[in-house]
């Protein structure tokens, strides 16, 4: 210990002797805290998010770090594993703030964990930019220090309803003739999705003919699909995390269910193309982000460049598409960088106010926060599985491909 301090002192003096040039590259540290699911049921996505954070930190440091005044900083994150459990997440957030003295937080994975941690960051007035909690209920609590870069969950499949209305008009029918079937899991996230779909369906005066809630633990939905076959809706919306996606795709094919438009969530997480091949064709999948979108920024480049460079940095992703969970995690770090620079100080209140005023174009999309802290500038994207590839078909201004309709 003593020796190394002496050595450091010597080296320091030598550097001082030879001028200050060598110091210019060494930036100070800004420490962020994150409790994230590295084990437990959210482990896969938790790791995706962590990789996104780390990749962004590395890119920002390559671009000269965060400049506040004439000093430069780099991010460093203290991670704790919340084991995918809410109570653990809240405890770890306390520990990060009280013991590690963290002043700024990055979010955990999932709405549930974010919900558990947000009261803690709120209590200590610690700004938290989160990238993985989409539940609408996070933004109705009046939280002042919580910001989310992603679109909230009620938007996930609502665009499918708009798309169905557009198609109805094209074929000379009225959107109010469209009949909607909904099957969502009975959890906060999926119920948000259902609320958004119901809201938009009501706007077009559509008729909801099936409205079922899938139990959390069951991997069989043949009863619903039988009903769908009998009532023949025009749109079928399914949300049940990756299990719901896998079950839906498999049983829709098995039961030979013909619905002109089928929209689901978590296609990538369930790897429906890899697992079920052709059965997944022409299914619409909602996503926060796709690498084919035309967004870009000065740090990460375009969405496509982000994907390439991320794959180069993390070879384990080489075989698959980079999940949006990773992209949005990177975007959250970028929001912090931007806010620190605009705030011009390390004071957490100043940083919080700067985050609230964010108006940032990123490779992930536009980021601008509402009063409640959710991102209101970025739309959800719908991709259709066409010959095993995910092609963006909605919203139309970013669409790279035509929609295949009707399905089947």
């Amino acid at each position, binding site marked *: 210990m003593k020796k190394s301090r002496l050595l450091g002192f010597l080296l320091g003096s030598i550097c001082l002797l030879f001028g200050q040039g060598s110091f210019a590259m060494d930036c100070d540290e800004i420490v962020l805290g994150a409790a994230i699911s590295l084990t437990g*049921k959210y482990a896969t996505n938790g790791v995706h998010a962590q990789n996104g954070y780390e990749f962004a930190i590395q890119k920002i440091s390559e671009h000269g770090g965060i400049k506040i005044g004439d000093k430069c900083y780099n991010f460093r994150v203290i991670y704790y594993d919340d084991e995918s459990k809410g109570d653990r997440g809240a405890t770890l957030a306390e520990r990060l703030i009280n013991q590690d003295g963290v002043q700024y937080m990055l979010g955990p994975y999932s709405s549930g964990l974010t919900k558990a941690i947000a009261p803690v960051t709120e209590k200590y007035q610690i700004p938290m930019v989160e990238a993985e909690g989409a539940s609408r209920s996070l933004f109705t609590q009046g939280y002042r220090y919580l910001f989310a870069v992603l679109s909230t969950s009620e938007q996930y499949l609502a665009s499918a309803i708009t798309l169905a209305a557009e198609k109805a008009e094209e074929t000379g029918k009225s959107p109010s003739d469209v009949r909607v079937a909904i099957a969502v899991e009975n959890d906060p996230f999926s119920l948000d999705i259902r609320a958004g779909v119901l809201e938009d369906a009501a706007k077009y005066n559509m008729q909801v003919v099936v409205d079922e809630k899938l139990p959390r*633990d069951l991997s*069989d939905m043949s009863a619903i699909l039988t009903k769908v076959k009998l009532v023949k809706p025009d749109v079928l919306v399914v949300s049940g995390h990756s*299990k719901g996606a*896998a079950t839906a795709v*498999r049983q829709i094919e098995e*039961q*030979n269910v013909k619905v002109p438009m089928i929209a689901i969530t978590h296609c990538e997480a369930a790897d429906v193309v890899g697992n079920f091949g052709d059965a997944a064709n022409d299914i619409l999948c909602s996503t926060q982000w796709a690498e084919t979108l035309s967004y870009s920024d000065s740090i990460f480049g375009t969405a496509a460049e982000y994907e390439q460079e991320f794959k180069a940095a993390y070879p384990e992703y080489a075989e698959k598409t980079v999940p949006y969970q990773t992209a949005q995690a990177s975007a959250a770090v970028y929001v912090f960088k931007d806010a620190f620079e605009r705030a011009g100080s390390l004071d957490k209140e100043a940083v919080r106010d700067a985050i609230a005023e964010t108006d940032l174009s990123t490779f992930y999309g536009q980021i601008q926060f509402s009063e409640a802290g959710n991102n209101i500038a970025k739309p959800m994207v719908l991709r259709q599985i066409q010959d095993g590839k995910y092609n963006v078909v909605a919203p139309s201004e970013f669409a790279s491909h035509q929609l295949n309709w009707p399905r089947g």
Partner: protein
Amino acid sequence: MDQILFNLSLLGEYPIVNLKIVIDGIMIGALFALAAYGLALVWGVMNVKNLAQGDFVIAGGYVSWWLAKYGVHPLLGVPAAFIVMWGVGWIAYKLVISRVVEKDLFTSLLATFGIAIMMAQILNLLFGSDTQSIKLDYDTLYFFDGFIDVPIAKLLGVLLAATLAACVIIFMKSSRMGQAIRATAQDARAARVLGIDTEKVYAFTFSLNSAICGAAGAIVVMVWVIQPFYGITHSIRAFVIVTAAGLGNLPGVIAAGLGIGALEQYGSHIFGIGYQQAIAVMLLLAVLLFRLIQQRRVRKSLQ
């Protein structure tokens, strides 16, 4: 209420759907019955209520899934999972279960609950938390204008399950080991007096249960999906089925499994799929109440 009436009217309008519901239910029930069968065995012979039952099922599914990744045909995964899970069951018995067999109910529940947590987490670390499944390239058979669909993969799964169940029943009835197991179940002490190595019987029974679960899991991965934390679904159903059928009534377990499968499907069609599991549990309550009343009558006549 309107929804329920509408659902009932659909059943009336398309009577053929009734048949479909029963077929679907039986195909689902067959798989749950298999795990329940193993549970009844362990419960009856060793008086251990194995809470890790579902996790053995999921582990078997992962064995088959992992082999399929390396090009092994999924149908061969069923015997492979049987063998591998036999080994896993044996290890679990030697490490943990052998120490709790003669202990009270609470100890064995805690121990098997611990095994369940361990297994789920180990599977998660080994294979990740993504849902997995195997798609068999078999067609689906359609009857009655496509109203009834029987995927051949599912049919094969049910046939495999039936074969396995039949083999185990024959084994229990006619082999020496089967006799020893039944003798131990009746009275362990008497069995020991008569020269049966009950320790060996216990180890065998637990391994057999684990192997049956493993084979069930290998079938589940072909017709549904698996994920490290889905074991509890199978555990709960196994308990419901065994409790409803009663111990020591192995054919009853199979019948109860099929019946619960079919009734669940009916219930979920009429009341909404959200109530599917509630229906299973209500059914259990009804059976238990019925039993209680029945027993009370018997006791009264004895007094």
